[in-house]
């Protein structure tokens, strides 16, 4: 499964506004996006699950994509993470 690993730099972590933004961005993609923190995971377009994952600034997460145009989704997500998170 295509994936990348990213260390969250935004001070809020994946809470509040950053989580809302990511859920929206992931929801707009053709692939199913999953965020992994250690062995726990959440669908990126499910806001509440994403928030309860409890990702904070400095945490390293792995992002996987499945289905649809995986290459395009992965590229878009990497750009989104770098820009916003």
């Amino acid at each position, binding site marked *: 499964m295509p994936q990348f690993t990213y260390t969250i730099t935004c001070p809020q972590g994946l*809470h*509040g*506004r950053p989580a*809302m933004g990511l*859920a*929206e961005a992931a929801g707009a993609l053709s692939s199913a996006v999953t965020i992994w923190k250690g062995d726990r995971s959440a*669908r990126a*377009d*499910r*806001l*509440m*699950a994403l*928030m*309860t994952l*409890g990702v*904070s600034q400095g945490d390293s997460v792995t992002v996987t994509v499945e289905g649809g145009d995986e290459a395009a989704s992965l590229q878009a997500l990497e750009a989104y993470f770098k820009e916003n998170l």
Partner: protein
Amino acid sequence: MEKRFGKSLCPGRAAAPVFVDGPARGAGFTLGFCGAGGELARFEEARRAALDRLEGQYRQALGRAGEEGAEIFRLHRAMLGDRDFLDQVEENIQGRGLEAAAAVLSAGEMFSAQFSALEDPYLRDRAADVEEISRLVAGLLSGAGEAPPPAGDYLAAADSLSPSRLMELEGAKGLILRECSPLGHTALLARAMNLPVITGLEPDPAWTGRPAALDGGEGALYLDPDQEVLTQFQEKTRQEALRAAGLAARALGPVCTRSGRAVGLWANAASPEEAARALGNGAQGIGLLRTEFLFLRRDTPPGEEEQLALYRQVIQAMEGRRVVIRTLDLGSDKRAPWMSGPREDNPALGLRGIRRSLARPELFSTQLRAILRAAAEGETAVMFPVVTSPEEVLQARALLDRCRAQLEEENLPAGPVEAGVMIETPAAALLAGELARVSDFFSIGSNDLAQYTLAMDRQDPACDPRHPAVLELIRRAVEGGHRFGRPVSLCGALAADPAMTEELLALGLDGLSVPAEDLWSLRERIEGLG
């Protein structure tokens, strides 16, 4: 009058009758289970209505509390669109045969429990958000709702208050709550809307309609307040408004006349406290920092570190705006116990200003080193008093350069420092062009300029800086400075005289430096000129 104490959550004061916000009006109704399809349709209809309401509250909060305060309503909307949450509601209806309202409340409890189990206090607070959106939808489904708030202003009292309800209570001037998380969105919104809030008081429904005064900072609620409390409230509120206006002034841009000519508005100061006041009153910087006060009334002159500490405090108080430090001008009417040399018969015409500093190079170097080091903290300039010739300026600058080189050798940080000249002798005004070649800016000291031009003690009320000879010297100083592109400003009593502002600007002055308390009136005066 009755005084109750709670805990302060948001400061501020408000006086108005109390409105105790009751629990839901009626218990609502239930239609009975109308089949899974029917319940799903009713849920979806209520959800859409809830989204509309949240959208309206988002816009309202955006206007009253800004983007950060309004964000909660975006979050609630996003939560109400969460696929997992919707799946759970559907499951509750289809699998468990729950009515729409019960199904959404049950899903809300489930998701809120997940948030409550988290360690992060911010995320734990989100449990309340999930409960709130499910109650909102359930309320729309069952027809239960809260009492409409009264018209006019009031202090809202309640056990707790959701962000949505807070937006509905449009007339609320303050909040009295039994519970309110300081990290929660209600607190955040209240702060953003400048509402005073106290917590920890059990609201009594009998308070409704009673006149009251709320002091958020003190955590106090006065029921049926007496006149003294109300007068105090007004006075404190007035003072805070003044302070707020001061804070707003920090954001003010340069002062311009109506035709758009920008005029430097500077303050004279002699201490960090005066500097802070100047910033609060809209000064673009300190145009004249007097340093004599540091040296007077003591047996030995202050050392480099002591001077440095004080200059730093002033620079920090000005939050990065330019501070022009005038080097020591002792002599004349100011004499310190540690000063050596014979007592002069005619000290106004004795050893003073730059002449005295150049005659005491150790003392002068100490001050220049402190100024150079302070300049590492923010924009700083130095200016020399009672100059009469370019040679004096060159000597002072040479010493300044030597001090900088020494600091470099000692690995002590120093900042860039412009060097300016005070024009306060006829000699300086007449040699303005020569002085402009060797300096970075001029500041005209009108009090001494008048004294030395008119041969009259500056303390004498007849010593008038508006004398045509003094004004002519000012004109020449401006002309000489501008010939070399040096900005010329004026400090001294003349600068604060509103009757002279127009004439001074007509002479071509780039800025005026006045005591902090004169900044507002001078700003108004300049802005009123053509």
